[in-house]
């Protein structure tokens, strides 16, 4: 058994090594210190070969001490090497110490999420927390689902509210790019029985020329709840809750009469203008309020169309534009910014 295989000696050797590292003045010196102590045949490393001679308890103690010592030495070596390699030697001493310690940290870049997706998630999460589940559907839709079953007859001016992009006529039926995510509501109601409590997030399309407030594709989150005893006051409660979560607890909101063929009564929800806080400005056309979404009680005709008995069940539905919410929340004045993907824009979020 090797006479020096004891804790005292190992610690002494370690101290000695650390001192040498501290006094070293070149990378070559550091390398020879490494070989001397912790290289394959190094003074500390070679003790491992002797461990088997010890009893179990001792073996564990010494083994663990050796490991700690070697790791300590490795770390010291590493930091000393870094110090040599870096342009600044001898950390923060001397006449420039003040400057050195106040130099900026490394400016590394982070990957950012697109602001639309961030707000999208935020919106969805609020409704998930309220017990809604997510339903998705195709973006290429049948006319029947996008319009007819939603009580929007052909050649009705209500279709003008949503100028439509149609696919070239080469499929079995007339197809279009959905103008809202409402066809998913139809799909859900056709395939499931009440109670239904779902949100339908997704991309929608309109025949619009691009400008600061119009896009031919944008995102919507719609919601649908159908059950016995669903009331207009429930709709108001859910949407007011939503507005507070998105825009802050103090946000004022109001509901106005509106018209959608698929809801009756139909309403629009406004929130207090975030720019002027209700004082009146150009953004809110001096009304103090800005529109954020359309909603209402599902039209009996729509329920009838999907085979739900409207004398037993009632429902509410709502639909909001994700870009619009993001623009209001982040005070973005040009909707096209979302699709330009300028990193100077995206990295702000």
């Amino acid at each position, binding site marked *: 058994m090797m006479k020096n295989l004891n804790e005292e000696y190992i610690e002494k050797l370690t101290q000695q090594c650390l001192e040498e590292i501290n006094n070293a003045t070149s990378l070559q010196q550091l390398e020879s210190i490494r070989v001397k102590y912790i290289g394959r045949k190094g003074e500390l490393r070679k003790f491992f070969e002797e461990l088997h001679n010890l009893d179990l308890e001792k073996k564990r103690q010494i*083994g663990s001490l050796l490991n700690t010592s070697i790791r300590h030495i490795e770390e010291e070596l590493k930091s000393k090497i870094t110090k040599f390699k*870096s342009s600044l030697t001898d950390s923060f001493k001397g006449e420039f110490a003040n400057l050195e310690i106040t130099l900026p940290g*490394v*400016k590394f*870049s*982070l*990957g950012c*999420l*697109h602001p639309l*997706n961030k707000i999208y998630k935020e919106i969805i999460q609020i409704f*998930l*927390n*309220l*017990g809604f*589940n997510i339903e998705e559907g*195709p*973006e*290429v839709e049948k006319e029947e689902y996008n319009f007819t079953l939603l009580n929007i007859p052909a*050649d*009705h*001016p209500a279709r003008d509210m949503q100028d439509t*992009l*149609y696919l*070239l*006529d080469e*499929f*079995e039926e007339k*197809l279009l*790019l959905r103008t809202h995510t409402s066809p998913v509501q139809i799909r859900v109601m056709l395939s499931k029985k009440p109670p239904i*409590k779902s949100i339908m997030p997704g*991309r929608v399309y309109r*025949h619009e*020329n*691009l400008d600061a407030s119009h896009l031919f*594709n944008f995102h919507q989150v719609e919601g649908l*709840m159908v*059950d016995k005893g669903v*009331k*207009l*006051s*429930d709709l*108001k*409660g859910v949407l007011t*809750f939503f507005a507070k979560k998105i825009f802050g607890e103090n946000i004022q909101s*109001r*509901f*106005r*009469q509106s*018209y959608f063929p698929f809801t*009756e*009564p139909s309403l629009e929800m406004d929130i207090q203008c975030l720019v002027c806080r209700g004082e009146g400005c150009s953004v809110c056309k001096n009304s103090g309020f800005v529109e954020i979404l359309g909603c209402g009680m599902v*039209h*009996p*005709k729509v329920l009838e169309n999907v085979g739900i008995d*409207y004398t037993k069940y009632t429902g509410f539905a709502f639909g909001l534009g994700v870009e619009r919410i993001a623009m209001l929340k982040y005070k973005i004045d040009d909707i096209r910014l979302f699709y*330009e*993907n*300028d*990193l100077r824009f995206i*990295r702000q979020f």
Partner: protein
Amino acid sequence: MKLSLNWLKELIGRQNNITDQDIIDALPQLGYEVEGIYKFDKEVLSNIKVVKILKVEKHPNADKLSLCEVTDGKNIYKVVCGAPNVTQNMIAAYVPAGGIIGGGVVVKNKEIRGVVSEGMLCSAKELKLYEDHSGILSLDESFPLGETLDKHLDDTVIEISTPANRYDCLGHAGIAKELKIKFNLEVTEHINPLSYLENKKLPFFNVKISSYDLCKRYIAINMTSINNKVKLPFFIRFRLNILGLRSINPLVDISNYVMLEVGHSIHIFDANKLYGDKIIIRNAKEKEKVIALDGKTYELSSDCIVISDEQKPIAIGGIIGAENSCVEDETTNIVIESAVFNQSKIRLARKNLNINTEASYRFERGSSFFLCELAAAKAYQMIEKYCGGEVVKFVDEKDMDYYNEIVSFNTNGIKVELDFLESLLGITVDPQKFINIVQNLGGKIKFNGENILTTRSFIVVPPLTRQDIKFPADIAEEIMRFIGYDKIPETLPHNIFEIKNNADVLKEKIVTILSSTSLNEVINYSLCSAKDNEVVRNNENLKIKLLNPVSNDYSELRLSLLSGLIRNLLVNYNNQVDTEIGLFEIGKVFYKADKKTVEEEKVGILIYGKKEILSWKKIVLEYDFYYAIGIIEKLFEKLNINYTKNLSYKSSKEYLLLNEEFLSKILYFLNSEEEIIGFVSELNKEKFKLKLPGSVFYCEVSLNNLRKSFKKDEIFDPIVKFPCVFRDLCIVVNRDISYQQIIKTMYSCINKDIILDVTLIDYYQKENFLSLTFSLKFQNKTKTLTDEEVDLIIKEMLEKLSKYDIKLREK
């Protein structure tokens, strides 16, 4: 739709003292959004005096100018005027020196061609009333001389949007009625407005409706001995002008005035210009041509409605009249048309002909039998009043079946339970309030039982004008419009907190992993150009084209995320934000297969440049092919997806592959079923015409194929406490073997207790062999690993590798 607040107040009844603000506040609650408010400029009008023109002479030094003497009742002023319409005895608007007119111009006494003009006579535009600068504003005798105009022309024009189903509210009267109900004022109905004509037993005017599908009612009133050279009262012409309709001649003005008031569009023909004595309502003949009142020639298709005499078309029904039958100053003999046209046909024709008129705006929203007769009655009465003449023939041709249907629906009514209303709305509905609202709307209430206040069930008969009211829910909306939605409490649905979160975990994970590698998320349009889609193989057969694209740049659905990402690369490269451009998008691509459309989600990743941290501490990492591979490998590692890498693929019928000529390198990632789950490529910059230094890398991941092998659950691997043993291994390879095969061979040499971690730390090629240096990390899960054990493993590795002509590198 534009409205005059004065007109509305007049129809509501001035005695009710409703203010402009009351109206502006009430309209949105009723469902009419106020889109614009144009108030007359009181400051300008307070400078303007009413004057009479006493004398008009030619200016001595200018042909186009007149010299006028005007009086405000006290003094006489000499004014130079350039307007062509200035005449003796005209009542005009005069601004004396010092007054300010539109555009902030301060009027001075100034010499014009040698004659001093004391102030000036003003046009409507100069008074900021409406856009007309063709002549001076012509007032009439109702304006007292010398008074300032602000006392007599104080009005506000508002622009509102009307719901698409409320064709009964496309005029001032309809809106005024809504306001009266809102303000709790009594509403009076006009009953049988044409009864006077009906009772006179006049001879029939000959009208033939070829199909009630085109037109459900056609009222024709023939009048003779009309004087169309009279001057209508100022207020009629003025209202037309401020609401955007130019005053033309008394008959045209009256028909427009009736439309703006009643909300139903009518037309007047010059009866002397009609051939024969019959008006026919029919489908247009294919390619039939009509020169319309706007001077344009329209070529009709057979689904247009045409009004014709026995020889020629005289109007495009419900849209615009023809030039050949229009009323002029000399007109004395007329036919007034008031009809109910098929709204779908109007809308279709309006779109096909690319024309928008006040008439088409109204007819395509629908029209009411009731307003149709009201408009007819109002028109002939106004014409009698202002232009004289008398009605000589009259006809009211209608689809009696349809008419009876409406009437019978109206007698049956809708059963409305107050309990239903209350459970739908979440408020208590007071029976008296309910009854008041229905009655004010013009509806009738029927109920069984003694006491109206204890009755919970009613039959509601909606007014004839409101054919949109069909369900109890429609009644609920009416109630709310007049009660106000602020009265509804906020409640939460009974089962609101049964949480069933089904968010897409895979997608969320991918976003988190990719953004942690400092890539930025982007979102692109899903429409692109034909050229953009060329990057995909077989694109001609796969791509989905739009019938009516917004522009050629966005005429197809995207087959790949690549073109959008390249656009983003260029935006950012040109902005010179920094040297590192790392982008990813998760989005749908679209293609057709077997005459069906397929939507598939992909992840696209584009990297370019270098991760260069601009700092006093130089940190540079060049993006290259292997960095791109690293991203995909890290992604799959974190998602626990097994894969193999391959330069080619076997079966990939469902995968949209990029055209190889657009790529200079590609590596596929396949799952156990040999399906492509992703690829890494270097782009052929020339093909993309990319003028930037360095290489661009594009990776793609198929969410569909990934989803198959993705498991949501993550299981914890216990942390191993035993020490690691490190070895470097340097081998020489001189045969064509894949890296994966080498690694696989190495791993085949360890037993299940050993954890091996292999990192390639050096690579170089010399002549016909490759040298690879690996750093190997060994660890045993159950005990401390000895050097001997590791030596044995390495020995076995070398033995197995030697089968592939791989050996240890000699120093």
